[in-house]
C-alpha cells in the first residue's frame, strides 16, 4: 500500500480551478445533437417511406433545424474568448481536431438544410416561396434530386451527431470522456431528441406511432451504450474508475441516475410502449421528458468530466 500523500502547490491559494467549459458547450452539444436527430428522422423517412408521407410537423421540423442550429452556434460563439478570431476556424483544416472537423461539417449542413426546406416546405411557407422566381428554380432542382439530398443529409447528420461526442472523447485529460462510446451515445441521444421534437408537433396518429417505436429503439441503444461506456471506464485505471463512480455513486449520481436515466430514458420509453399498446394516450409530456433528459445528459457529462482529471498541484 502507498503511504498517504499530502500535496501543496503554488496554485493551492487560487482555490479549486473554475470549469474550463461552462454552460455554452453542453447547450451547443444539445442543439447540435437535436438538429442531427431532426435531419436523421426526416431524411430516413424520405428514403424509407417516400416524400409524400412527410407530414406537416416534419416539414416544420425542417424549417426549425437551421434556426435551432443557429442557437447552438451562437452559444459556441459566446464561448470564444477571442471572438474576432472566429474566422480562423475556416482558414484551416485540422484532421486530428474534432472541433475543426465539426466546424466544416456545420458549413456543409446548412445548405443541405435549406435545400430540404425548399423541397418539402410547409403549406404556409410554400405560398410565400412561390412568389420568388429564383427560388422556384432551386426548388425544382431540390425536388428532382430529393433522394440524393436525403442521403447527403443522412450522412451529414450522422457526422454532426457523432462529432458532438467525439469532441469530448479526444481530450486526453478528462478520464470520464476517454471513451469512443461517447460518439455513439451522443448520436443516439441526439436522434432520440430529434424524434421527440417531431413528436411534439405530430398530429398524424400513424406517424406518432412510428416515432414512438423509433424512440424506444433509440432509448434502448442509449442505455446499452451508457452501460458500455461506464463499464469500459470502470475496467481501466484508478482515475477512470473514479470518473465512472462519480456518475453512479458520487455527486452527479442523483442528477444522472434520477433525471437522465430514470426521468429522461426509462419513464418516456415505458410511456411510449404503453401508448403503442393503447394503454396510454400519446402525450406531449413524453417527448418533453426526452428533450429535458438529453439536455441534462450533456450538462452532467460536460461538468462531471471537468471535475475529474490527473492533475496534482
Amino acid at each position, binding site marked *: 500500500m502507498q503511504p498517504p500523500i499530502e500535496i501543496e502547490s503554488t496554485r493551492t491559494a487560487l482555490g479549486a480551478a473554475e470549469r*474550463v467549459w461552462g454552460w455554452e458547450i453542453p447547450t451547443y452539444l444539445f442543439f447540435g445533437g437535436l438538429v442531427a436527430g431532426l435531419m436523421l428522422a426526416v431524411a430516413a423517412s424520405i428514403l424509407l417511406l417516400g416524400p409524400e408521407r412527410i407530414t406537416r410537423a416534419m416539414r416544420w421540423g425542417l424549417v426549425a433545424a437551421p434556426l435551432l442550429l443557429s442557437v447552438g452556434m451562437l452559444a459556441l460563439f459566446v464561448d470564444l474568448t477571442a471572438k474576432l478570431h472566429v474566422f480562423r476556424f475556416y482558414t484551416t483544416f485540422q484532421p486530428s481536431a474534432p472541433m475543426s472537423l465539426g466546424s466544416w461539417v456545420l458549413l456543409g449542413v446548412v445548405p443541405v438544410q435549406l435545400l430540404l426546406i425548399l423541397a418539402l416546405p410547409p403549406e404556409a411557407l410554400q405560398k410565400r416561396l412561390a412568389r420568388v422566381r429564383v427560388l422556384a428554380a432551386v426548388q425544382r432542382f431540390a425536388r428532382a434530386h430529393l433522394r440524393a439530398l436525403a442521403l447527403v443529409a443522412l450522412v451529414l447528420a450522422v457526422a454532426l451527431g457523432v462529432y458532438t461526442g467525439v469532441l469530448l472523447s479526444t481530450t486526453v485529460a478528462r478520464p470520464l470522456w476517454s471513451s469512443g462510446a461517447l460518439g455513439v451515445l451522443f448520436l443516439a441521444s441526439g436522434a432520440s431528441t430529434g424524434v421527440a421534437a417531431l413528436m411534439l408537433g405530430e398530429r398524424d396518429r400513424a406517424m406518432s406511432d412510428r416515432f414512438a417505436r423509433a424512440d424506444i429503439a433509440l432509448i434502448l441503444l442509449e442505455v446499452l451504450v451508457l452501460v458500455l461506456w461506464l463499464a469500459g471506464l470502470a475496467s481501466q485505471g484508478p482515475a477512470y474508475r473514479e470518473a465512472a463512480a462519480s456518475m453512479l455513486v458520487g455527486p452527479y449520481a442523483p442528477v444522472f441516475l434520477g433525471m437522465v436515466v430514470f426521468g429522461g430514458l426509462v419513464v418516456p420509453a415505458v410511456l411510449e410502449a404503453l401508448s403503442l399498446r393503447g394503454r396510454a394516450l400519446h402525450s406531449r409530456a413524453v417527448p418533453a421528458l426526452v428533450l429535458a433528459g438529453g439536455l441534462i445528459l450533456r450538462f452532467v457529462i460536460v461538468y462531471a*468530466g471537468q471535475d475529474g482529471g490527473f492533475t496534482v498541484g
Partner: protein
Amino acid sequence: MQRVMVIDTRRCVGCEACVVACKTENDVPPGAYRDWVVQETRGELPHLSLLIRSERCNHCASAPCVSNCPTGASFHREDGTVQIDRDKCTGCRACMTACPYDARYVHPDGFVDKCTLCVHRLDAGSPTACEEVCPTSAILTGDLDDPSSLVAARLRAGDVSVVTQEAGTEPHVYYTH
C-alpha cells in the same frame, strides 16, 4: 533538435524563485501561473519524506493540446517545444480541457497562454528565466538529441520520472531523483 528541461528534485528547495522570475520575464497576469511549485509530503509523522517539483507545461511529444486545436494555433516548433500562435487562437479552450497538467490559462486579452520554455531567451543563447534564477541550479534546459549536452548527462545518470505518466503524453520536462 529536441529542447527539454531536466529538474533535479534533490536540489530543489521550493523557494519559488522560478515562479517569480517567470511572472516578471513573461508579464504573466495576476491569478495565472506559467510555472508553479508542488510539494508532496508522503508518510505519517515521524516517518515523512518530502518531494518538491517545479512544474510547467511539459512540451509533450504527444500533445493533446496540439491535436485538439481546431485552428492550428497550438503547434510543435521545430525545436520540439509546444507554442501558441496568438493570432490564430480563438479562445475555444479545447486545449485547456485536453491538457492533463492544467498548464494553460486564458490571458485577459482573449488568447490562451502558457510556458513557452522561454524560447525567446534560448534562441538568443540565454537560459530560461526560471533556470537563470534558480539558486541551486536544479533547473536545466538543453538539447536531448546532443549526447554531450548537460541535460543528456543528467538523464543518463539519475533516476528519471515525468509527471502523470499514465496520461501518455510523453512529456519533455523530466525530474531526476
